[in-house]
């Protein structure tokens, strides 16, 4: 019998080797070190236009909270003040700029996910970083620079230090 794990074969032989094409079709993630970023570069102005057209209806004009107005989606834009923030935004909370590219490309716009070109995602990313005061007008956003953008809230993030046992953390 092979009922003990020690007696298992090295391989059961189920499943198939994945081809390069299999992987490329799904490997859409972008890492903090930039692995996964496509070619291209973001343009703040174009990003602003796309945002107004495809995003503002849910995230508000300029991605900002308007007092008294209830939006169907979170505000995305603020200053970079983590300590005095009201609500988390890209500027005051997000620790990595690459997350913005990755998330927008995979999930947004909510009503048409997966519809944006890489160029559009670069443009929006540049615009949102700019609107949040993270980058300056004229900054270049591409596969080399995006990982290097230092997000203002980055320094606040620490790994979990809870450990169980009789200790409330």
């Amino acid at each position, binding site marked *: 019998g092979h009922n003990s794990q020690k007696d*298992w074969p*090295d*391989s*059961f032989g*189920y*499943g*198939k*080797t*994945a081809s390069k094409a*299999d*992987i490329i079709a*799904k*490997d*859409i*993630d*972008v*890492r*903090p*070190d930039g692995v996964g970023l496509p070619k291209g570069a973001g343009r703040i102005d174009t990003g602003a236009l796309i945002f107004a057209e495809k995003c503002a209806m849910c995230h508000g004009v300029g991605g900002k909270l308007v007092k008294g107005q209830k939006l169907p989606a979170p505000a995305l834009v603020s200053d970079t003040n983590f*300590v005095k923030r009201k609500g*988390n935004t890209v500027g005051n*909370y*997000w*620790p*990595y700029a*690459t*997350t913005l590219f*990755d*998330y927008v490309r*995979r*999930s947004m716009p*909510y009503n048409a*996910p*997966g519809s944006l070109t890489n160029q559009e995602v670069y443009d929006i990313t540049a615009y949102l970083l700019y609107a949040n005061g993270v980058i300056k007008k004229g900054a270049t956003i591409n596969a080399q620079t995006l990982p290097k953008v230092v997000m203002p*809230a980055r320094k*606040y*993030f*620490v*790994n*979990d*230090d*809870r450990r*169980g*046992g*009789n*200790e*409330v*953390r």
Partner: protein
Amino acid sequence: ALVQTSVGKVLQPIQTATPPEDPTKTVGPLPSKVGTRSPFENSVRKPSDISSRTPLQDMYSTITPADLHFERHHAGIPTIDPNKYELLIHGMVKRPMKFSLHDLKRFPAVTRTCFIECAGNFRTGKEDMTPQEILGLTSQSEWTGVMLSTLLREVGVDPKSTWFLAEGSDAAILTRSIPVSKAFDDAMIVYAQNGEAIRPAQGYPVRLLLPGWEGNTNVKWLRRLEFGDQPWMTREETSKYTYQVGEKVRQFSFEMDARSIIIYPSYPGKVEPGYIEIRGIAWSGRGKVNKVEVSTDGGKNWEIANLQEPVLSKAHTYFRYLWHWDGRQTEILSRVTDETGYIQPTLQQLKDARGPEMGGYHLNPITAWTVKRDGSVWLKPEEFKKL
């Protein structure tokens, strides 16, 4: 009346809430392909646009009926053809592979009963809140599938790989980074729930199961695992599921701290003086429930509740405590201790530990109910900024 069953295909007669005067004199509906609930039962989830909550106050034991399992979706429930389904495993592996659903089912299988809980599972602030409203974002199932470690023998994970990315195939293509150690500990790739195929809302045909870890990491509609040497810092582990503790933000807080709640009596129930069996559920993301204590005097004295056997690791555990109520107003509370010795805190203890800017995730405070002289039961609300 004919009704479409939950399978959505079969028509069958249902009972109506106007029963015959004497049921012994009328032959009832005959056996059918799929059963229904009594028309007198109304236990349903409480849905919003993004989640739905399990009616915990209605639960008599710890397996949640699959159609009442809590939900948290980020872009609705995708429809996935099981015959086209594939799980891709690649990255820092010797041999990148893809597995069909049939492939996954052929591997040595394991069944594990455990809870899943959303890390944002906490509400308070009003007296008229039910257990479902307070913490209905947790449910329990019997999950069956293959140990992730069994699959990893096939692909040959690079010993230098420290993190892997789990990715869903919903419209959010939801992703989380998970330490590889969990993959070799107790992570599972599951395709069955409570004996049958996983329900669409819980990840049909395949989800990741990380026993004891925050709900969001148990990626549903799983399509891809990529092995790497650093976390991806996805939106769900940066913008979400992180929370302020002191002046810092805690990230990757995977384990769900131990928690309990009394579900009977609870709002909007009413009790009578005399013997009352207090009932509730307790659990810990770190292992077994070691003990549950109940206080019937607002927290001054605590006594040990009975635990329903079998007590399983990282699993909802039913507790019961027989109380004689003299009819005077009081407060009843429950407090769990898990096998690591962790004792469920009060919200004040959490505030003391995490500071005034404490964020809204991973809150597991003791829940207190006020029993008034008229027998009515009300939540004792806590003050907490974010409801």
